[in-house]
């Protein structure tokens, strides 16, 4: 990577990408790949699939950088989170994640299983229940809890008001509490 690109902000890099700079694209990819991968993984629960989604999102940006319109979007990451979420949802419509298809049995008493096995089972059950939530509730949970976005930023990504986002989180948590009651 060309020295100096790392100091430029996202908007500046995007302007250079729109002018055809491959170095600016490389800098943007290096900076953000990890965070968008994390989000994609939350949806698909599979490394290869999550990597493909992130790659697809970045290559679409490279091929058609005019999709990013600074006058319409306040922050690159907010806009790109939305792009990645949409790709994940498209992916889920085409294919259900195999990792979540496995049957999850009800928990046994702690004496029967070791702690690590119980935790794995809990995690599997949780992922399964999150995957069953309505789209926007799932997005709210993934962005706020897994990605650590502020409620305001998550609301911008999903395209709802702050109050609506808080209500989405509340409803999602209530559903999960109910469905996971044997694990809590």
């Amino acid at each position, binding site marked *: 990577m060309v020295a100096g690109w790392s100091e430029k902000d996202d908007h500046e890099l995007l302007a250079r990408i729109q002018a055809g700079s491959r170095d600016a694209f490389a800098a943007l990819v*290096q900076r953000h790949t990890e965070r968008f991968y994390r989000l994609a993984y939350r949806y698909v629960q599979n490394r290869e699939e999550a*990597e493909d989604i992130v790659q697809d999102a970045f*290559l679409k940006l490279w091929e058609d*950088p005019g999709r990013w319109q600074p006058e319409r979007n306040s922050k690159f990451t907010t806009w790109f989170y939305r792009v990645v979420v949409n790709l994940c949802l498209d992916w889920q419509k085409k294919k259900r994640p195999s990792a979540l298809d496995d049957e999850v049995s009800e928990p046994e008493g702690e004496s029967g299983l070791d702690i690590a096995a119980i935790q794995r089972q809990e995690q599997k059950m949780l992922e399964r229940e999150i995957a069953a939530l309505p789209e926007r509730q799932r997005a709210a949970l993934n962005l706020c*809890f897994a990605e650590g976005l502020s409620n305001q930023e998550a609301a911008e990504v999903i395209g709802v008001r702050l109050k609506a986002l808080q209500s989405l989180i509340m409803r999602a948590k209530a559903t999960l509490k109910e469905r996971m009651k044997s694990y*809590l």
Partner: protein
Amino acid sequence: MSTTRDQKEQKLEVMLQSRRLEPASPDLAERIVHKARHLTQNQTVSLTQWMKGLFAEFHLPRPAYVLASALIIGFIIGFTVPQNTTPADDADSLSVQSFLYADEDDL
């Protein structure tokens, strides 16, 4: 009762924050950059951008400079044209007219 509910809420939050994450391949970013090298950019211009471009075509870069240049050129042309040519020009135009209408008398 409410303490149990709080505990459940807390446990759920802990579970939500400690969800399993498989780390990405260390070369993921390089792979993306490498793949992009084989792709060419196709620029789609949005309506707003197209309109801006269109108006930019008609935009005078610096109106004051354009006005000043027009005045200077005007003065230069004005001073380079020879003066006191009016009577001779009139005579010429008369002779041209008489030439043009010369045949009309015969009709």
